[in-house]
């Protein structure tokens, strides 16, 4: 009799094991070399005014989000309403890096869909993206007041990921200071 029950037990064990595996979260969450390190220095012309610049010193002193976006990226379009929502709450400054894009298209995007950013740097060549280790847009970095990368989010932001990944760090960071 027992040998006929054995497959059942093996499968139940396998399923429980896979369940634990699923709960552990995203296997792609490779430890980023930037987490806990100072954010890479950068200096970019702003999207709206090529003669003005935005750079690392503008971020200093405040907890800030740096969002890498592009008009050709559908994920960016998907997260855009959420970014607007965040900006409307005025809880955290959002800076953009317009990555591997063209200026007219990016300006049209901002014009049509709204602008959640304090300012966006224009990184048409993707040079700053390389320094920041950007794989693909959208990516969002949480940078502390003293310029340390606290978290890096790959893919579109959503309410769920914001609350599970960012809010605890933002609250925790506030308590520590």
């Amino acid at each position: 009799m027992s040998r006929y029950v054995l497959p059942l037990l093996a499968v139940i064990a396998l399923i429980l094991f896979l369940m634990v595996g699923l709960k552990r979260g995203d296997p792609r969450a490779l430890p980023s070399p930037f987490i806990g390190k100072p954010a890479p220095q950068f200096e970019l012309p702003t999207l709206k005014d090529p003669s003005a610049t935005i750079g690392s010193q503008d971020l200093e002193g405040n907890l800030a989000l740096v969002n890498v976006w592009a008009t050709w990226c559908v994920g960016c379009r998907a997260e855009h309403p959420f970014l607007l929502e965040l900006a409307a709450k005025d809880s955290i400054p959002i800076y953009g890096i317009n990555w591997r894009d063209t200026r007219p298209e990016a300006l049209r995007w901002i014009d049509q869909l709204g602008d959640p950013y304090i300012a966006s740097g224009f990184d048409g060549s993707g040079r700053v993206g390389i320094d920041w280790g950007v794989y693909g847009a959208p990516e969002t970095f949480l940078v502390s007041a003293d310029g340390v990368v606290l978290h890096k989010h790959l893919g579109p932001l959503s309410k769920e990921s914001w609350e599970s990944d960012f809010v605890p760090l933002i609250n925790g960071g506030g308590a520590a200071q």
Partner: protein
Amino acid sequence: MIPEIGQFALILALSLAICQGVLPLVGAHRNDSAMMQVGNTAALGQFVFVTIAFGCLTWSFVTSDFSVLYVANHSQLSLPTVYKISAVWGAHEGSLLMWILILAAWTVAVSRYSSELPEAFSARVIGVLGLLSIGFLLFALLTSNPFDRLTPPASDGADLNPLLQDPGLAIHPPLLYIGYVGFSVAFAFAIAAMLSGNLDQRWAKWTRPWTTLAWMFLTLGIMLGSWWAYYELGWGGWWFWDPVENASFMPWLIGTALIHSLAVTEKRGLFKSWTLLLAITAFSLSLLGTFLVRSGIIVSVHAFATDPTRGFFILGFLGVVVVGALILYAWRAPSLDSDVGFALLSRETFLLLNNVLLVVAATLVLMGTLAPLVIELLNGGKISIGPPWFEVAFLVPMIPLVLLLGLGMHTAWRKQDTRPWFALLRIPAIAAVLLGIVLPLMFYGRTGLLLAVGFAAALWIIATSLIQPIRSLRRKDGSAGITRSALGMSVAHLGMGLFVLGATVTSAFNVESDRALTPGESIDVAGYDFTMLELRNVEGPNYSAIEGVIEISKDGDYVATVRPQKRQYLVQKNWMTEAGIYATWNKDLFVALGDQLGNGAWSVRVQYKPMIRYIWFGAIIMALGGIIAVSDRRYRLKASKTSKVSGTAAESA
């Protein structure tokens, strides 16, 4: 509008699947003929509505309706139409819809060709397939709706992953899914038999053609995937032991075991509970593969976008299906096994060994696939298990398997006399060993232990597969020739022999060289001169490419010109490699462009791959063997007359 029709059709399909999943099973239990017949009609209706849904999604792709999120994410205006169509199944949601469509198609086929089955049995089969349809339709509607809208619509899409913009990959998933899903038929037959409690040898006879068909499609699907990886990924390998490849390979190994075990059950009434278990396992591994690919639990180069809710859904579904089936198994199987004996030297013994070795192989692949996850969960950090481990581990059951294969084919059922057996097999065995050592020395100038074993094993299988067909050709007029079933077996085994030959020779004598080349320069690989004549820009419909024109010559004589490309797709901006391959019957010359090195130089990977085509050719021959075996008169499926005129079914029954 069209996407909403598609979504509505999916919901209707779900309602019909519920009818199909519940009524025939209840009807079979109560012996109510009308209720049992509803299953066939509901299955047909489900198929029609799923086809409509699939058509709607295809329409949205062809007309580039970027208000549909799935289309916006996986298509683009300048994408060639053929790839707009194949993009339908290019990612999770659409491929799930295709899976559902294929399941519905298998169901209709089973209901149409089941006139020889007892009514209650076929009703149970249709019912079980209906339950599976319910699960997949719920999965699509609740977690992976392909018809979700995107507001505001995108002006252009994000493009289909360029890796998938290839004819091979356009038809690889459908074939693979037909195979995967086909094992659900064997699964449903097993469940139906256990529900009725009546599992005689006819059950195995009915299951065999369906299983062989599914196996055949899976073989072709895996073969195409391997071929695609060879020419598209630019590495020149043909199997990478990637988790996703393994996910398709495990059901194949178990499906192969099932085909052999079914033969024993049909002919001799043995191994009944074991065959049932294999039928359950083959389909369970298909589901496990789906889970591994779609849940994001394992990192792989071609896993779908990850989403834990989907993972939990499939895992829950897998749990219900497999645990349910195995509870039924634990309850019913003990009463099935009979005590019919067989001698040590008999075909039964060899098929038993075949099964053990194939199951060991599948278990090793499963262990290697899940090991990184186990280590990680035990806080051992991230590891990956690569080809070196698999290649060694996999050979352990495979070498005895291929050696025993030639013996088993020529061993009689029940009991084989030793003397005629030796007389028949002595010559092929000696010839295979001698030629296995001599031929590599003759053609390639060296030999080695593993090489000789592989070469001899290939020749041994080829020789022993040919004995029966040749005897049949030379028989006296009037005597019975080989049956289709036996011919199919011989052909499939011949394919296996060709495969082993290709795999052995190509891994032993592959020559590979990575070099920087500027136009005008040439390199020598395995006696061939590869001269880069020029580099030029080429424009495709949705990519621009750099093409190297490379002339191959041997001893000053022109052999061929190949044109490897490095393509940059305009939307996603990623680079793709199109290898330039010159293929003849006994070798491939493979050239792929690597990276630009400056000063007009490019890194170029040149490979000489002897007999690599035999790997895929062998797989095609194996699948051909499957078709021949299915066409045997014994298994010829008869269309039921009743299902043609639906409505009269209930009255006539």
